């Protein structure tokens, strides 16, 4: 006589396969929908520690390049400082440097070969990082904090097809959204610009300040190609300022994003 037990014994391998696949599908769904879940990512405590060790080893071999980059950045910042020393900007700069509003994070994991790329940084909620905070490098905008654990943060960079940042053309009154379509890590598209926006190759693209995370005027990239058609929004290709394949350290601005605004924009 056939019983349910016979059925389970006969098809136990198939049932196990179905259960395991169901667990996988649930993990994929939860990763895409629940931003509080960091357990199965590099921002989790165990994986984060391993990535941290691995990054420390590989970082050692890139010290010469990193030193060169820091020296260049130092020189640039000094030149900027001389320009504003005697102006009213000094008070603003002093206020900025005396506060703890900018944190420096080391990149411990970084992917560039997928549609959904992420960057893991070695600072988390203990240091004051929270979801939605803006992340940038010395060259320009990197992305926003996506998930946070106690000691690590997962950043959604511009190189993620789900990322969309409000941008404008410097010196022109036109706004659009910067989106990445996958593939080429050096270029992204600026969409939803008005049809007669007066954009030219070589124009600077910067943050508009309309986004909940970024203040206005942060460097994003340079317009490298424009395809215009009559009556429709031009297709603008932007050469990104940040080289995501060589990113070593990032800055996270810890200016709090109002919870009410986060809830409103996630609805």
């Amino acid at each position, binding site marked *: 006589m056939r019983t349910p037990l016979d059925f389970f014994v006969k098809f136990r391998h198939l049932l196990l396969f179905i259960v395991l696949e169901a667990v996988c599908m649930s993990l994929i769904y939860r990763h895409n929908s629940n931003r509080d879940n960091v357990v199965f*990512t590099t921002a989790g405590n165990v994986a984060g520690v391993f990535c941290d060790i691995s990054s420390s080893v590989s970082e050692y071999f890139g010290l010469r390049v990193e030193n060169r980059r820091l020296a260049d950045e130092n020189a640039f910042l000094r030149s900027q400082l001389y320009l504003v020393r005697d102006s009213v900007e000094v008070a603003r700069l002093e206020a900025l440097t005396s506060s703890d509003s900018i944190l420096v994070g080391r990149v411990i994991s970084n992917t*560039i070969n997928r549609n959904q790329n992420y960057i893991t940084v070695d600072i988390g909620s203990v240091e004051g990082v929270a979801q939605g905070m803006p992340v940038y490098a010395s060259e320009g905008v990197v992305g926003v904090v996506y998930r946070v654990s106690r000691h690590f943060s997962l950043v959604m960079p511009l190189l993620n097809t789900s990322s969309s940042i409000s941008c404008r053309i410097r010196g022109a009154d036109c706004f659009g959204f910067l989106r990445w379509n*996958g*593939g080429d890590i050096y270029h992204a598209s600026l969409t939803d610009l008005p049809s007669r926006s007066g954009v030219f190759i070589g124009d600077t693209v910067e943050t508009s300040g309309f986004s909940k995370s970024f203040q206005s005027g942060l460097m994003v990239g340079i317009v490298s190609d424009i395809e215009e058609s009559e009556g429709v929004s031009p297709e603008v290709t932007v050469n990104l300022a940040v080289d995501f*394949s060589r990113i070593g350290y990032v800055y996270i601005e810890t200016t709090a994003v109002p919870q009410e605004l986060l809830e409103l924009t996630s609805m």
Partner: protein
Amino acid sequence: MIMLVQVLKKVMLSILLLAIQIFLLNRISVLWCATPYVYIIMIMICDPNGSVSGRLVSAFCMGLVVDIFSDTPGVQAAALTLLAFLQPSLIRLFMTLDKRDHIVPGAGSMGWVSYPVYILICTLIFVLTVALLSSVSSPDWITLTVGVVLSTLMSVALILCIELVFRRNIRGNKRRRFL
């Protein structure tokens, strides 16, 4: 005792291949869309007459470990579990199996014509599943196709190199197997 040593050897080898995959190969990005996978060889060379549950669970665990370090929870675990489920059927395409046989799939048991084709089919199934699950929300078919083709070719080349170097280490007439 010999059985325990063999299991330990396999576990150590799996850990080594997982480390290579996570800390080395995952950082390779050809044309920003292709990555080679070598840890999947551990499922391909499983005895098709061995424990099915063991193969499925170990495939799930190995895939999940790589997923955690790639920020793709569930994707590689799903693909490798699928491969582990299909593996005996794929082996049967190339050789007749007796249920009592203890077979270690490889160039030695399958031949240098069948084995590369078997590796190619297995890798293609894995890479295609990973690519489809990764880009389910916003598929870019051209990038996806290029990525699948390049990833498969690189993975097959690396797996065959491993077969040549480690699994066919011939000293005189004596053949030693490390995998």
